[in-house]
């Protein structure tokens, strides 16, 4: 009997000790979490947008929040089956909830700053920051949820709800109120980010690209149908030069529109746009080839041609090669600009690579023809002393 009493007392003492140890551990853990979240709050307060380190700062903050959430999960998992709540624990829970709200509000404020970045940063810069901001918003939301879940779990496990009822209700109301405010701040952040994410389908360029292709084809057809003679070379090349200048102006105008759009919008790639871009590079290659043929004709006709006519013709040739070179480059650049911020890059990746390969092949052909035309023209200038 004495042994039984002793054993019972020993078990009670051991349980009391274990409970007290677990309880002390939860209190310490909660206080540790408060310290960590306060440090995160300081970290987010120090972030400025725009700054050269904005995306690094946001990522670093996100890493801190993720590891904090993992710590909350660990504390939740370690909650003992019976918890005796103290005012200190409830104060820690209140502080955590309030700090989470402050962090969410700060994130919302940062997202407002990001909207101001629009005018001073490159599209790549603010898109990188925007992507980091969306991740941050997601992770702050998760962090706040885990804090609330931990508070609920502690409540389920607590053995002294009756004696702490009023204080617990205060905490629960505060948590509930804060989570609503956190969600509202997150929604503001997301709204700010979504507002920055305007998108445009490239189908809008197809009409201009089609017109450009048809005009370039028409010039190519004209050039293919005319043979230069000693008498017409200057006048014909001048006419072609005028047409090419108009084509360059159209290409540059479309390029400028696309470039301007790329600074404010992402692009949703339409398959026909890529086809038109590829086709346009084929037509440009044909133009360059026709120019090379002209250079050979001028070279043959040079000794029989009046110096003034020849000089005008070679000058036109150099301008034509420069213009066709500009067009050829701009077409490739347009595809590059479209794909940088494309919304559907994953779906279109094979088509993009295919188009770029077509463009690359045609660029090589165009460049070779232009180089050949320039070389012949320069040699004519040299040999004829122009």
């Amino acid at each position, binding site marked *: 009997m004495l042994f039984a009493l002793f054993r019972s007392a020993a078990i009670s003492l051991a349980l009391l000790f274990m409970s007290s140890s677990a309880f002390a551990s939860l209190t310490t853990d909660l206080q540790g979490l408060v310290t960590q979240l306060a440090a995160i709050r300081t970290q987010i307060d120090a972030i400025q947008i725009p700054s050269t380190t904005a995306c690094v700062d946001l990522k670093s903050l996100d890493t801190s929040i993720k590891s904090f959430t993992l710590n909350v999960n660990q504390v939740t998992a370690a909650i003992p089956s019976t918890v005796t709540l103290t005012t200190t624990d409830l104060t820690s829970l209140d502080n955590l909830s309030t700090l989470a709200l402050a962090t969410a509000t700060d994130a919302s404020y940062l997202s407002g700053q990001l909207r101001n970045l629009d005018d001073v940063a490159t599209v*790549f810069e603010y898109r990188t920051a925007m992507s980091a901001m969306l991740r941050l918003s*997601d992770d702050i939301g998760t962090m706040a949820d885990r804090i609330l879940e931990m508070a609920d*779990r502690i409540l389920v496990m607590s053995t002294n709800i009756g004696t702490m009822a009023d204080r617990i209700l205060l905490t629960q109301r505060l948590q509930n109120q804060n989570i609503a405010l956190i*969600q509202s701040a997150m929604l503001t952040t997301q709204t700010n980010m979504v507002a920055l994410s305007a998108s445009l389908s490239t189908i809008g360029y197809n009409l201009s690209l089609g017109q450009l292709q048809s005009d370039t084809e028409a010039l190519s057809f004209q050039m293919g149908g005319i043979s230069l003679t000693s008498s017409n070379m200057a006048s014909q090349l001048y006419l072609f030069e005028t047409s090419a200048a108009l084509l360059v102006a159209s290409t540059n105008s479309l390029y400028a529109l696309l470039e301007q759009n790329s600074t404010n919008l992402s692009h949703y790639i339409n398959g026909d746009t890529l086809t038109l871009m590829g086709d346009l590079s084929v037509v440009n290659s044909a133009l360059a080839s026709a120019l090379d043929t002209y250079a050979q004709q001028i070279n043959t006709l040079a000794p029989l041609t009046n110096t003034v006519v020849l000089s005008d013709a070679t000058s036109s040739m150099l301008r034509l090669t420069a213009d066709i070179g500009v067009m050829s480059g701009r077409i490739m650049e347009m595809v*590059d600009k479209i794909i940088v911020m494309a919304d559907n890059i994953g779906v279109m990746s094979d088509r993009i690579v295919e188009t770029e390969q077509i463009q690359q092949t045609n660029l090589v052909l165009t460049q070779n023809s232009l180089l050949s035309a320039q070389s012949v023209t320069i040699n004519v200038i040299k040999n004829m002393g122009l």
Partner: protein
Amino acid sequence: MKTFSSRSIFQSALLFGALMLQSVAAQASLSTDLQALNSQSVTLKSYLASTDIAANDACARLVEADRLARVIIDGIAAIDQGLTPGILVDTTTLNELDALSGNNVSLANEALGLSTELDTFSTTADAFAIKDGLTAMLQLSDDIGTMADRIGEMADKILVMSDNIGLMADRILVSQQLQSQNLQTSTNTLLTTQSNALQLVAVAEDSSYNVSFDSLIANGGLLAARMSSVVLNPFTLNTQLATVATDVRTFLDQVKAVNGTIEVDGTNLTLIQTADALTKLTSTAAMLNGLSTALNGYVVALGGIQAMTTSTKLKPSLKSMLQISADIGGMANRILEMADQILAMADNIGMQADQILVTQTAMNGSVATTQFSILNAQTAVISLIVLRNL
């Protein structure tokens, strides 16, 4: 007359001298400007060479590289716009042009090197880091490609504007051949860079989760119906609520499983958001309302029968209520997190902007209603604990 003639010759000589000086000054200015561009290109090359795609500061460095590249492109454009007829091309200018073209090839090679690094990095990095790296590679390729084009265009324009092509023909031809060759090499290298980056694209449609969302909506509806059909009575209250608590926990695990799938996907791929999946997300959050209504019903029923229930049955029942409240809260959080996670992973936010905001607002509304019901249930349970001194 003679005097006038001498004066005229003198004026002509003076004018010629001034023009010669201007031409030489302009020439010096052109080669100095090109030299400055070369120096900037070398700086950018070193900068790219010392950039580690896997480092924490990679995004800031790539943003800075983009800025440096744009400064060079603007510099080339400024020189190009300032070119006027009558340029006397000299060897120094052509040397600088050749060097600029060579530096561009080096820059393209650096970009290619970074894309190879990104390929290696992608085996350990998450989808977010890969997406940033991929965008950076495409941006860098665009910048360096634009630079290559502008260099070629400037060289062509210098040729068009020059007055001494005949005298410098051989040297110009060497330069033009080199420029053309370098342009082809640069664009070819950049094409490989872009292909490398595009190979890393892994994308899925969020509609692939539709079956999971449908299942959650259906199972949540069934759970709400089961909860509503339970008529609480004082004699079996504890077992009734324990069964409901087990059902709620099982459903919470299902919600967590879908949430976990989206989270894992977030480490491997990005998403194309569809209107259909966004509507289903809204319905998933709305499904919570059924659970909240049932919970509110329990609170009312408990208030009515608690007086007839023994403390031994009431105490575990109230524990179950706290458990049910906590689990429904966890469920609501997970559902909202799914939407946030999908938004953070999305490639096409712009295309779905309006629908995303409608979804987020509706989901927030549903979750807020649920949280209010949970607080209400917790308040009622705590009050009963106090009232019955449990």
